[in-house]
């Protein structure tokens, strides 16, 4: 029995609010927590299959051309070496998120410096690593290869273009206007667990233990890459040590491990070294963004321009959707939005946490700060004045939107009324103090999802889906939804994830995981509730389930008695529908930040940060808060330190490890204050939840940048704002 729902009409009946167990929304501890804190959770590398051989990938050291191994015989003769593999099925780079088919497979044809082109397999890791380091290529490097995104003719992305009204005229006639070019650096996801796969074959059936976010797509991608049927591939990813987009699609280590394991007839593990993860896993594109804002005397926008240049490798469809939230966040009759892509031979680009808004929103929000300054209007008030009634380009209504509430609540908690009002004017010893704010916005999406829930004869429930928990809290929230619907205490519900043989989940990506898979579990439970009603011979609306007891009218029965030895199984399936097209769905928020900038060195310290977010129904306040903490931490990194640096000669990533690519450390991040607003979005999902995994990042760096401006009077339009960009212009320097 599958209970299917296509989201064609808003879910006005808020059934989760009618339930009695009181689990949904509660800040429960993660059920997987004890395994994680005691080192017992099994991540990809941690299965210890008998007789596993170790594979180490070898990277190309040319940017474009044909690689050839010059010393294959010598490598093969090294201690412990089992094979040196090159294969036309090897992936050039990971599949893009939700591709569902193999990415470019280029064997020894190299398209970027660092592309994995060979795999050395040996008895031990030490032998494999040593042999891999001894490989010598005598590849032919091509000349005149483009590496600089601003030095090539870009391709325009037609479907991202909006040209409405007359922005040039609006700019000419504006009482206040901003016309600025911003740049953001490329970013690495840098999930703490490197990409790793263990492949093992049983006849023609492949089991891959890997670190992946979206198993239903990954099975299809891996099968396609290997040229085998999907039903011969099983992927296990019960624990994923961080993803942030970098594990959306099947990546080079998986395919090479599978090919090697088949060739050797034994399990092969391929764990990418940190440097290889930087080299060969999809990066976030750097951007160049031209922003124009035209406003009347009162700061009301009459025009918005946001045109971005991003890059990717030839043949990759993905283009960082920089202007995604600019389309609807603010009013303005005249609009010119565009996205162009430069084809270059750097490491290919793809989705990194909050693709689009992560870099587009901070820039838009910095430009709004510039406008507030120019028009002498409180930045909070400027934003509130420009919130449109309807989608300014598509003329459709918005679903639930908590932008004003977030701005107001954030301003109140932070003490925005006491902010520094004189850029560069607030000094504490050697520190310049500044305050800044920014809005947050991220489009909301639902993705097709299935789940199975079994209510066992003894009265406990099991949730099964191939959905993953990449740190997002899926284990917790799906148990909470099931426990709520079935009236079970949380310790009577178990959630099993990350096995592609389970019903197909939506995958962890695009912030849709919780609302989509939560909805599938909700629907599966509705099916079980129906079956319980049949047994009780009651109407569904008369049924109360709480603490393992079913009550209808004046009858009350423990579930175990009611089941009489039977299991009840319900399957749920959700699909996106018309509510996704008929109204604009997004999540909103606001950030407020206090920085101290050293007046002699230009070093910036973030001293305080408040984030207020509205993301529909919150399924677990603890894990949702953590998602926001993580997002803001990323925002601090983007604002201050994170930057992929490419060698201009061959495009290679110079800072390809965690010592040189600077993610925030503990002392870089203050105790962040997070508020989750109470919200239900009926158009978003039958559980009224929206996505929250990325929202915390979508504008955060803008708040930091605006605070730096407020502290120093220096407007840096080039992220990250490292001290070299401030030091020459600091007041008094």
């Amino acid at each position, binding site marked *: 029995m599958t209970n299917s729902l296509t989201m064609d009409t808003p879910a006005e009946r808020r059934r989760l609010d009618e339930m009695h167990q009181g689990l949904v929304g509660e800040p429960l501890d993660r059920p997987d927590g004890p395994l994680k*804190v005691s080192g017992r959770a099994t991540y990809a590398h941690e299965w210890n299959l008998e007789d596993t051989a170790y594979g180490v990938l070898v990277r190309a050291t040319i940017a474009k051309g044909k690689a050839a191994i010059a010393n294959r015989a010598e490598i093969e003769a090294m201690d412990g070496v089992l094979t040196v593999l090159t294969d036309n099925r090897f992936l050039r780079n990971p599949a893009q998120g939700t591709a569902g088919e193999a990415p470019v497979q280029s064997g020894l044809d190299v398209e970027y410096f660092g592309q994995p082109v060979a795999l050395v397999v040996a008895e031990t890791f030490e032998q494999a690593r040593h042999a891999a380091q001894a490989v010598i290529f005598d590849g032919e490097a091509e000349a005149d290869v483009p590496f600089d995104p601003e030095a090539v003719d870009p391709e325009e992305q037609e479907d991202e273009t909006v040209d409405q009204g007359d922005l040039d005229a609006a700019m000419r006639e504006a009482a206040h206007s901003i016309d600025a070019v911003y740049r953001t650096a490329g970013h690495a996801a840098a999930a703490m667990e490197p990409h790793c796969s263990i492949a093992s074959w049983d006849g023609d059936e492949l089991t891959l233990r890997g670190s992946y976010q979206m198993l239903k797509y990954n099975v299809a991608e891996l099968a396609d890459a290997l040229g085998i049927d999907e039903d011969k591939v099983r992927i296990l990813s019960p624990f994923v040590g961080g993803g942030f987009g970098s594990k959306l699609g099947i990546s080079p280590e998986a395919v090479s491990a599978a090919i090697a394991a088949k060739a050797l007839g034994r399990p092969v593990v391929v764990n990418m070294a*940190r440097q290889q993860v930087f080299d060969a896993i999809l990066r976030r594109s750097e951007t160049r963004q031209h922003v124009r804002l035209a406003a009347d005397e009162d700061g009301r926008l009459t025009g918005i321009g946001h045109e971005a240049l991003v890059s990717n490798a030839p043949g990759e469809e993905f283009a960082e959707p920089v202007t995604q939230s600019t389309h609807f966040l603010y009013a303005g009759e005249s609009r010119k939005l565009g996205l162009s892509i430069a084809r270059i031979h750097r490491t290919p680009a793809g989705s990194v946490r909050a693709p689009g808004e992560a870099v587009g929103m901070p820039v838009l929000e910095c430009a709004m700060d510039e406008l507030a300054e120019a028009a002498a209007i409180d930045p909070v008030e400027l934003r509130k004045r420009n919130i449109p009634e309807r989608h300014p380009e598509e003329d459709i209504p918005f679903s639930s939107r908590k932008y004003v509430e977030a701005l107001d609540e954030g301003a109140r908690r932070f003490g925005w009324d006491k902010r520094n009002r004189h850029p560069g004017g607030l000094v504490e010893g050697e520190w310049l103090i500044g305050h800044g704010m920014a809005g947050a916005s991220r489009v909301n999406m639902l993705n097709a999802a299935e789940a199975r829930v079994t209510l066992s004869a003894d009265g406990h429930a099991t949730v099964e889906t191939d959905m993953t928990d990449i740190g997002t809290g899926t284990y917790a929230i799906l148990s909470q939804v099931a426990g709520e619907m079935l009236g079970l205490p949380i310790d009577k519900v178990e959630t099993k994830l990350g096995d592609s043989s389970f019903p197909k989940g939506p995958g962890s990506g695009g912030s849709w995981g919780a609302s989509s898979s939560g909805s599938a579990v909700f629907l599966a439970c509705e099916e079980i509730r129906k079956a319980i009603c049949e047994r009780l011979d009651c109407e569904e609306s008369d049924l109360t389930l709480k603490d393992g007891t079913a009550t209808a009218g004046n009858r009350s029965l423990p579930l175990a008695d009611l089941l009489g030895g039977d299991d009840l199984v319900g399957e749920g399936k959700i699909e996106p529908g018309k509510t996704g097209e008929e109204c604009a769905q997004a999540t909103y928020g606001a950030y407020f930040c206090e920085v101290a900038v050293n007046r002699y060195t230009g070093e910036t310290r973030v001293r305080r940060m408040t984030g207020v977010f509205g993301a529909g129904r919150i399924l677990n306040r603890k894990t949702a808060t953590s998602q926001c903490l993580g997002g803001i931490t990323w925002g601090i990194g983007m604002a201050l330190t994170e930057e992929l640096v490419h060698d201009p000669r061959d495009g290679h990533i110079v800072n390809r490890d965690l010592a040189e690519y600077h993610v925030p450390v503990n002392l870089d*991040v203050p105790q962040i204050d997070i508020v989750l607003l109470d919200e239900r979005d009926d158009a978003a999902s039958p559980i009224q939840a929206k996505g929250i995994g990325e929202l915390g990042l979508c504008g955060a760096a803008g708040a930091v940048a605006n605070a730096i401006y407020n502290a120093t009077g220096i407007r840096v339009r080039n992220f990250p704002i490292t001290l070299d960009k401030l030091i020459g212009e600091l007041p008094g320097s």
Partner: protein
Amino acid sequence: METRLSINGDTHMLDADPRTTLLDALRNHLGLTGSKKGCDHGQCGACTVLIDGRRINSCLTLACMHDGQEITTIEGLGEPGNLSPLQAAFVRHDGYQCGYCTPGQICSATAMLKEAEQGWPSYVSDDLDGAPALDGEEISERMSGNLCRCGAYSNIVDAITQVVGERA
């Protein structure tokens, strides 16, 4: 090469390539996969273990250098149902997300508390003498060798603060 490793109170005879790091010995040879490999270069702290009570990046040292020393890994600090105070506090405060940096964080925090007790100053200590009070900034600084890409720092500090409070 034969090495006698004493880990979490058990003795293991390791016969491995001399190039084997302590981290790889634990993970690949001894089935102790609680210690994580985030970078293999001493840059992230995910592999932190305790050697004679002091924290060390196990990826930066060879197994054969630790013959006879007392090694404690995350598995030795506690287990589900019997978690150490820090482990339990990390669960309660959601001091993690994906959990991959977590064993390193907890091993590191375990040793860090002892360092503070013994009066070790840090970069942010006002005073080089006397026992430093572990406020949020002291904890953050002393834990800055353990990266958390999920960005759980605020909650990690809260978890450690709770344990500091319980000990006081």
